[in-house]
């Protein structure tokens, strides 16, 4: 446990040496990565040793700050499960930052970025091991402020400053909700301990705590109605920061929700149902938005919302399992949720790194200006294909494994393996998940094509070059991780069982449910999955060899693409991201509300015209921004009370005095 805290401290300090050194030389940059990598490796070793051998998992230091709350950190299954992605992604991100955000190219904000990168990662790690709400809030806010400074790195561009402000408002709303949540918990349970004693919570109090937790942590996780800050923050942040935020930071919202929901007693059915509904809505609508985006980092951000939706579906299933005392559902639900957290951390970080190397090459995020990058950046294209296949949950890779568990769990609600209590309504989430999977295929196929395949749509692509090795190394590591988890799920499963056990046993009376939990590897046929995955890879290799033999230069003649005989195809004739998404945007018009400004041609010989269409975030642009402006307009009326007239000011005092005097006490 002490090694873990030392590693967290090392990560926190990783940015400091750089901040001191001269901003021209690269010394600071290497030191920062060195510290961050060393801290992460120690952290990973400590968590690995704890998972394997158990050992001291509690550290309590007297702390006089808030009476009744001392510095109490601990390690249990749930914390360990969430620590692994934090350490892994922050280390890889720091290495990626070497090449992507070189100090010489970004002199004025490079040091600031590394300083807050270390602090943000350390904040996440400390909030995951926190065992009382004060330490949790410390970690939470250090992470939130650190992430804000990271998002606002290039704040000289107005869109970045706007994104930073939007993020800050959302995160502070989450923090204040958590103030209310932990204040209420302290008032009811009497102590600040985080896995609080749930037995003291009456059903009404448990419901309020659940709603507060869902709101507070939902803001950070980015579940659908509370997701407004996520797309602009991820799009405008530097890519390795977006990877850290999308891969791990929004998972802190999931961790917080899991931690609080673990000790709530007797969860009623509607909790699970609400989560399932929110998950499906976030998934489907999130992807509908993703398909319609023209900025590929916003596309990846909306896809993160979709994956958070999947995680909430799994959590909802687990909560239903606890409500009906079905250990099987809890096992599959929580197993699917934690596993998908890991998988999403792996492939989403990989996709954001690919996006980063593309931006590094062409300095734009517009898909409609790219195309044909596959030939100039072959390795990035390969990694993007691996990432895209994984994120859609397609078989040989890791995305499929966690969605497989969630499917088996959802079908289980029909009483498939054993005829216990059945909840057919919950099973309806399975087709929702299928729709999410298929939409993901549509979204990522068009994104992949728009960026890497076909002919270059603009001159930006000409001077594109492959990314530096410091950027490619983390990408290959993550791609390898996706393939390994996909092909050998049996190896990974044992690391998740302690998380499930920790989540179930924290509830009052949850221990007998926890006893009924069987290891994940026995419940799900992971052996078969790896066998079939390997055979698929073998068949692909065989087919590839056969086709390669038949495609040797002797048998191949190259020509222009066969556009049904059209001899002079130009790159502009290719489908752009808007045209790819035209049918789907039409189907989801009610949710997306696309804005299309078609040229109005009214004279006989029309002059030059232009067509532009965009899909702004409907919750933000149609509900929140106009709502807040409306309120602000009303509030401005109150300024009439401060118009500079001293006599009026004195009258307010007199009125207050008289009112108080005649107030019937």
């Amino acid at each position, binding site marked *: 446990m002490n090694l873990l805290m030392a590693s967290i401290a090392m990560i926190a300090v990783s940015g400091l040496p750089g901040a001191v050194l001269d901003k021209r030389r690269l010394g600071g940059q290497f030191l920062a990565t060195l510290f961050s990598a060393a801290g992460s490796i120690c952290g990973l070793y400590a968590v690995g040793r704890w998972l394997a051998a158990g050992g001291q998992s509690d550290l309590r230091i007297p702390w006089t700050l808030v009476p009744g709350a001392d510095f109490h950190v601990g390690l249990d299954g749930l914390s360990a499960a969430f620590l692994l992605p934090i350490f892994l992604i922050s280390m890889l991100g720091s290495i990626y930052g070497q090449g992507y955000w070189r100090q010489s190219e970004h002199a004025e904000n490079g040091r600031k970025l590394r300083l807050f990168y270390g602090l943000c990662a350390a904040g996440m790690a400390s909030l995951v091991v926190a065992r009382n709400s004060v330490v949790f809030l410390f970690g939470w806010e250090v992470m939130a402020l650190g992430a804000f400074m990271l998002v606002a790195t290039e704040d000289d561009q107005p869109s970045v400053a706007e994104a930073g402000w939007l993020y800050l408002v959302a995160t502070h709303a989450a923090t204040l909700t958590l103030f209310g949540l932990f204040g209420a918990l302290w008032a009811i349970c009497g102590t600040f301990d985080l896995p609080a004693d749930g037995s003291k919570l009456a059903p009404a109090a448990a419901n309020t705590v659940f709603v507060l937790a869902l709101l507070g942590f939902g803001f950070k996780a980015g579940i659908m109605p509370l997701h407004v800050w996520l797309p602009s923050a991820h799009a405008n942040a530097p890519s390795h920061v977006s990877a850290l935020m999308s891969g791990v930071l929004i998972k802190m919202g999931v961790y917080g929700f899991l931690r609080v929901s673990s000790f709530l007693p007797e969860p009623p059915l509607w909790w699970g149902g609400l989560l399932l509904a929110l998950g499906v809505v976030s998934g489907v609508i999130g992807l509908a938005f993703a398909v319609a985006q023209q900025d590929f980092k916003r596309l990846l951000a909306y896809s993160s919302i979709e994956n958070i939706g999947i995680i909430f579906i799994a959590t909802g299933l687990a909560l239903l399992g606890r409500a009906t005392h079905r250990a099987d559902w809890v096992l599959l639900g929580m197993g699917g949720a934690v596993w998908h957290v890991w998988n999403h951390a792996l492939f989403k970080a990989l996709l954001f790194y690919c996006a980063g190397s593309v931006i590094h090459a062409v300095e734009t995020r517009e898909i409609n200006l790219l195309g044909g990058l596959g030939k100039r950046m072959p390795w990035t294209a390969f990694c993007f294909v691996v990432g895209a296949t994984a994120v859609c949950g397609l078989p040989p890779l890791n995305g499929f494994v966690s969605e497989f568990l969630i499917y088996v769990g959802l079908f289980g609600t029909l009483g498939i393996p054993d005829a216990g209590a059945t909840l057919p309504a919950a099973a309806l989430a399975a087709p929702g998940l299928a729709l999410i999977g298929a939409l993901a295929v549509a979204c990522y196929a068009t994104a992949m094509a728009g960026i890497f395949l076909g002919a270059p749509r603009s001159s930006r692509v000409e001077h594109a070059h492959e990314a530096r090795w410091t950027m490619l190394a983390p990408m290959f590591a993550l791609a390898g991780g996706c393939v390994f988890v996909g092909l050998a799920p049996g190896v990974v499963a044992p690391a998740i069982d302690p998380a499930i056990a920790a989540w179930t046993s924290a509830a009052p009376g949850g221990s007998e449910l926890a006893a009924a939990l069987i290891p994940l590897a026995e419940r799900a046929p992971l052996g078969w999955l790896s066998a079939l995955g390997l055979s698929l890879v073998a068949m692909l290799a065989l087919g590839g060899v056969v086709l390669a033999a038949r495609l040797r230069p002797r048998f191949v003649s190259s020509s222009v693409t066969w556009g049904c005989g059209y001899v002079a195809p130009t790159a502009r004739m290719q489908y752009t991201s808007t045209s790819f998404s035209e049918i789907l945007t039409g189907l989801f018009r009610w949710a997306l509300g696309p804005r299309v400004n078609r040229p109005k041609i009214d004279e006989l010989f029309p002059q030059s015209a232009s067509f532009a269409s965009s899909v702004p975030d409907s919750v933000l642009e149609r509900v929140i921004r106009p709502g807040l402006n409306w309120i602000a307009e009303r509030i401005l009326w109150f300024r009439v009370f401060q*118009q*500079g007239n*001293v*006599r009026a000011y*004195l009258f307010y005092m*007199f009125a207050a005095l008289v009112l108080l*005097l005649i107030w019937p006490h």
Partner: protein
Amino acid sequence: MFTLTTLLELVLLLNFFVLGASRLRTAVNLVAVQGMLLGAAPLWLEHGPRVVLLSLGTMAVKGILIPRLLLYAMRDQTIGPEFRPAGGFIASLLLGAVGTGASLWFGGTLPLHNGEHSQLIVPASLATTFAGFVMLFTRVKTISQSLGYLVLENGVFIFGLLLIEAVPAMVEIGVLLDLIVAVFVMGIIIQHINRELDPLEVQHLSSLKE
């Protein structure tokens, strides 16, 4: 014959005169007279060298020093001699009357010690305080507002009479000292206002607003 009650009645009367005064200079003099009267009031309540000294001091300050200060501050002012309250005379007078009535009623509700002092002290102090407030609400110019503050201060002083023997001298002096310095600073500021700001703006002094 000339008991404390009649003195307080005189003070109440003066309140109305000050509210109704149309010329600034008369208003200042009236307040000076009121100050003199109040300065003398303690003599009725208690005897002894301390009290005499105290009342002489009060009369000197309230009756002479402060009015001189205000008149000095006013001397090169360009504002016209006549000064109309914002709501017009009748309105401020009516307000004054209503205020006196209300304070009489409110004074009644507060249980009075069956003291030997006149029953009129509490209502008189509340009425004068209220009159001070009315002047502060209705008058526009800085000089008249400081006058309003003075009348308010007199109201508080009247109530102080009840506690002549309770409140030690040192605090009494402190109160007087603060009053002097307050008016002194107000006078300086009024002079600066007249010098710095043009007359029009002086009327409203409302450039600082949201």
